[in-house]
């Protein structure tokens, strides 16, 4: 773990200890720091702003109630993202959301080099628009993976913790998401 990350983690553990000792107002530090990131992830999963705001609130309340179970073996944000992800997953299950599937053989036929060069460049409004539409069609886990990996810059190990997967599994899934996006855009 890098020194800055370690320092941040220690600061956060210090905050948590003080909150557990009764300084509830310090929880606003976490709310101010992470509320927008958590909301961005949830709104991408549940798609409506009102539901996302409610689920963001639920996630923070759950985290507060379980604060004594946080043992500092990962960053607080990773732990919080895991709670938010599980909260959003439960909401999508209740609403029985359906996501389009992509033909496996179609995905297998896509050469790796094509994907590397395709996503490496960001030129073209139409390409970006198609990509945005393709992202909306991804399932919950896939959306979470790319949101945390590309916008929150979470490492593979942290993603593995959030999604309760192995690091190798995360790498494979990230690789497959890019292929799926390519297929959804080009078909």
């Amino acid at each position, binding site marked *: 773990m890098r020194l800055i990350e370690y320092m941040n983690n220690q600061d956060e553990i210090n905050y948590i200890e003080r909150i557990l000792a*009764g300084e*509830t*107002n310090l*929880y*606003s530090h976490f*709310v*101010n720091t992470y*509320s*927008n990131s958590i*909301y*961005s992830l949830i*709104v*991408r999963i549940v798609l409506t*702003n009102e539901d*996302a*705001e409610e689920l*963001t*609130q639920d996630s*923070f*309340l759950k985290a*507060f*109630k379980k604060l004594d179970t946080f043992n500092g073996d990962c960053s607080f944000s990773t732990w919080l993202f895991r709670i938010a992800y599980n909260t959003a997953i439960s909401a999508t299950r209740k609403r029985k959301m359906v996501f389009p599937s992509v033909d496996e053989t179609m995905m297998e036929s896509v050469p790796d080099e094509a994907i590397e060069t*395709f*996503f*490496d*460049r*960001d030129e073209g409004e139409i*390409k*970006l628009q198609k*990509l*945005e539409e393709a*992202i909306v069609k991804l399932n919950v886990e896939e959306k979470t993976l*790319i*949101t945390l*990996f*590309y*916008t929150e810059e979470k490492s593979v190990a942290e993603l593995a913790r959030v999604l309760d997967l192995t690091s190798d599994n995360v790498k494979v899934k*990230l*690789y497959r998401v*890019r292929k799926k*996006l390519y297929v959804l855009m080009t078909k």
Partner: protein
Amino acid sequence: MNNDKAIIKALQSTESPRLSTDFNSRLMAEVYRAAERKKKREYVLGICLISGVSLVLVGIAIYVFITYIPWKFTFELPNFPKMNLTSESKSMYEFSIYIALLSLILIGLDNYIRHKWMMKKSK
């Protein structure tokens, strides 16, 4: 994989609308309520636990006194009638009443000390 500029740009361009301006204050109000509920629950649980343990201890004391130990006590408390109790007493009423009063006093004292301690802590 980190250099997938197109995906990063697409994710940024579909950036979600911001949370409502009073979201954080509303959330903190909920957090304070949850903290209060948690404190109250812990307090009630503590009282129940202490009461339970006190009753068990009193029960054990009574059992030991009655079954194994010959005893003779004289209690003289202000504003209370003088009590002479022996293990040969026919009636256990007075002794039972004394134990009940003692339990109530202990629970009341515990409550009073807890209340004082919590007031001090909140300051």
